[in-house]
């Protein structure tokens, strides 16, 4: 299944007439420009993809993976740090002033929480009419008429014009939010978790409404969600994000049925299925996603990956020991970043027991139940010496030298997988390695 790495331009610009939005190496960073702020938070760290006219592209991932930032950058609610967002050939990251305002009519966003995205002091009519007022469309009478029609379109009643948002249920409020985005007749709508705050039966109504509207007005959606069953239902293609990067992108059914990237595998297996008889094997990922201010080197998923490439000389070690080594590295990484108070430092200097506990205690906790062969013990001892000297960075360096591999050394390339232009961001698709699925079977099967 392994292929040659491909350039990250998914289709040649202009080659496919249907492409509406082209995103090229887009980066959005927060902070990092001040002298003392430390490194920036790399919320979106170089993503490229296309959105075709009339399709629904899903964007999934855990919280903090940058999916909302990416959505907001596409509609220019955040400004990009680098890269391009081409709408029908125009780079909108370069637009400003009048041009930007004009372009905004074309792309709108529906927010997740209908409670906080509607102004409780405005009537429903005012809320939905506001975009028309801002863009000075038609006469006041025409605007009111248009708003009433829109309320009808989204399944509310025309009489609701003079009511306030608090008089509506969650599902109805989300309909108000949807009506507001439709007022300017946009072509492209970012849906940022539009149904996450709703109960399942109400969620179904809103999803049906979104599908109807797409058909009626020929809309193009970017659908951001963490609920994968909703994504599977509504999306034509899905992009899976992790720590600011797209890990896998491809047609929905294929991606769900035969995930190529190890992260997609893990994410899909973590969803509890509404079927008690299903015996799907859950891959429980270790730990939490890393801090986007300090992303790991190499592949973003390398710290948690269940199929990380291991150095040849340690190929024979059992999984338990690998888990223990991982835990140790995770603990050291956290310690490296944890702030030490002055008291901690003094206690350490005096050789007193500090809240950080001794490295021996940690070794005991982590390696207590596993047998450690001598060739593994050597680097571990060396790392322990560094930690005793208060130098976690060097200890991590030692562990990386001993147990690291290509996953932590360099970022992977995008490989084409499957039969339908699916892209996956993983070293294991390279010819020299075994595929993720094969290794998953072996380590978790």
């Amino acid at each position: 299944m392994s292929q040659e790495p491909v350039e990250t331009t998914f289709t040649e610009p202009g080659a496919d007439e249907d492409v509406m939005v082209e995103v090229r190496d887009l980066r959005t960073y927060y902070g990092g420009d001040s002298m003392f702020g430390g490194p920036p938070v790399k919320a979106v760290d170089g993503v490229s993809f296309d959105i075709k006219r009339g399709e629904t592209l899903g964007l999934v991932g855990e919280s903090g993976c940058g999916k909302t930032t990416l959505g907001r950058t596409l509609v220019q609610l955040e400004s990009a740090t680098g890269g391009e967002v081409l709408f029908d050939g125009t780079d909108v990251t370069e637009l400003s002033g009048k041009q930007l305002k004009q372009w905004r009519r074309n792309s709108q966003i529906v927010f997740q929480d209908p409670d906080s995205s509607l102004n409780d002091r405005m009537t429903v009519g005012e809320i939905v009419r506001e975009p028309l007022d801002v863009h000075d469309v038609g006469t006041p009478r025409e605007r009111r008429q248009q708003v009433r029609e829109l309320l009808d379109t989204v399944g509310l009643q025309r009489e609701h014009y003079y009511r306030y948002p608090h008089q509506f249920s969650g599902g109805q409020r989300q309909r108000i939010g949807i009506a507001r985005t439709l007022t300017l007749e946009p072509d492209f709508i970012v849906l940022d978790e539009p149904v996450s705050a709703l109960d399942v039966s109400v969620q179904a109504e809103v999803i049906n409404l979104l599908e109807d509207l797409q058909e009626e007005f020929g809309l193009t959606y970017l659908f951001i969600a963490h609920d994968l069953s909703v994504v599977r239902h509504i999306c034509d293609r899905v992009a899976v994000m992790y720590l600011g990067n797209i890990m896998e992108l491809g047609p929905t059914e294929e991606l769900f049925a035969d995930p190529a990237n190890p992260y997609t595998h893990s994410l899909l297996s973590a969803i509890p299925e509404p079927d008690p008889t299903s015996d799907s094997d859950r891959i429980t990922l270790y730990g939490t996603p890393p801090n986007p201010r300090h992303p790991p080197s190499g592949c973003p998923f390398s710290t948690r990956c269940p199929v990380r490439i291991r150095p040849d000389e340690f190929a024979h070690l059992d999984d338990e020991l690998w888990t223990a080594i991982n835990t140790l590295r995770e603990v050291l990484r956290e310690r490296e970043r944890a702030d030490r108070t002055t008291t901690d430092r003094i206690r350490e200097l005096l050789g007193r027991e500090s809240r950080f506990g001794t490295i021996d205690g940690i070794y005991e906790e982590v390696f207590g139940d596993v047998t450690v062969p001598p060739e593994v013990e050597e680097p571990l001892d060396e790392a322990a010496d560094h930690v005793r000297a208060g130098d976690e960075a060097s200890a991590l360096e030692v562990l990386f030298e001993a147990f690291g591999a290509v996953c932590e050394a360099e970022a992977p390339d995008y490989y084409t997988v499957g039969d339908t232009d699916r892209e996956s961001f993983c070293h294991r698709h390279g010819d020299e390695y075994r595929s993720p699925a094969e290794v998953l079977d072996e380590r978790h099967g």
Partner: protein
Amino acid sequence: MAVEQTAERTGTREEPIVTVRNLQTAFFTDKEVIRAVDGVNFEIVPGETVGIVGESGSGKSVTARSIMGLVDSPGRILEGSSVRFHHTDTVREFADRFPGRTVDLAAVAEGRDPEALFAHDAVGATPSAFGYDDASEASVADFVAAGYGEALGIDPEDCVFITEGTVDDPLDGFVEITRLSGESQRAMRGGRIAMVFQDPLTSLNPVYTVGNQIEEALELHRDLSGREATREAIDLLEAVGIPDARRRVNEYPHQFSGGMRQRAVIAMALACDPEVLICDEPTTALDVTIQAQILELLADLQTDRDLGIMFITHDMGVIADVSDRVNVMYAGEVVESAAVEPLFAQPRHPYTRGLLESIPGRQEGGRLQTIEGTVPTPNEPATYCRFAPRCPERFEPCDEVHPVSVPVNDEDGDHTAACLLYPEDEPREAAVSSHEARDDSVREQGGERR
């Protein structure tokens, strides 16, 4: 294991540790009386997980808070509700600590005929209200637990009931949770029944270290303090899978990630080695990969400690994953109850069906099924089916007859649904009138339903 297992469990595995009978919790506002929980029955069994599922506003959380004794004014648990805690060690301990509130049921029952009690002025119950077909099945204990102790000369403050042995040397019995107050309440809550809430950040105090908060629980319930408590707190954090617990114990909640916080909250809940753990949407605020970790942790803890878990969620996927038995709630009532597999394979109540059909991915393609309308506020006694206005299978009597739970599955006698369509093998009219007959009794018995 961090905490020692309590000595011996009572009875066999199938004996429930908590039985909830006719639980009614209402909120009395100036405008109306909201019956948030309206006659709920279920059990919690050691080593098993009972799931409660429903949309927002269905009364799931109030049920949990009623069991925990966390219902605040203007809400209160109505007369006739009963939540019994069956655990011999607890009964012994409580009988010892609260001798003035302990009652020997054998002594009370002596010379009394339970059947005759149905005729007593202060009693508005019929046998079916206790779940019996015949008056002869009732025992004096049922009357006591249902709040008719007055007729038997029992003080309403009494909360420990001995069924075997004597007040000085109890062998078996139960604690009536709805009657606990003050010190007895605090000993039960946290000590015997612990709770994990949805949002770990609101369950943790931001200005104390995580260790402080666990140690506080240890000091209150197990009388540990100082170094001993710290050591125990570290053990607990390790038991819930927090690496580098020695350092973590001195950190503040904001230094923990979401999943780690929920682990810390679970460690707090386990601090007193409870018998029952109530989890109110414990993973709703977490990402799926973290949710998977927490669900796995809860399953491991349950096996290790033989915990009885009550698990509340609105996520059908999570329910299918964790539950042994499921109760579907709608507008304050349990509308369907079954073991998890038959519930998903053969849902009987139209609401359960609607709920399952509205989940994307359960059926192939096309439009999603929806349930029109929203969950009503149960602000009047149920004299009709509360789901009728939204029900696709509604027929006329649904507006006039309140359905009671009846068996709906021949293969599984414990599968019940509260719907006039059942029992299926009877003609509609006969089915409806049987519901009507049984329901009148429930309402009479409720007595206090104002």
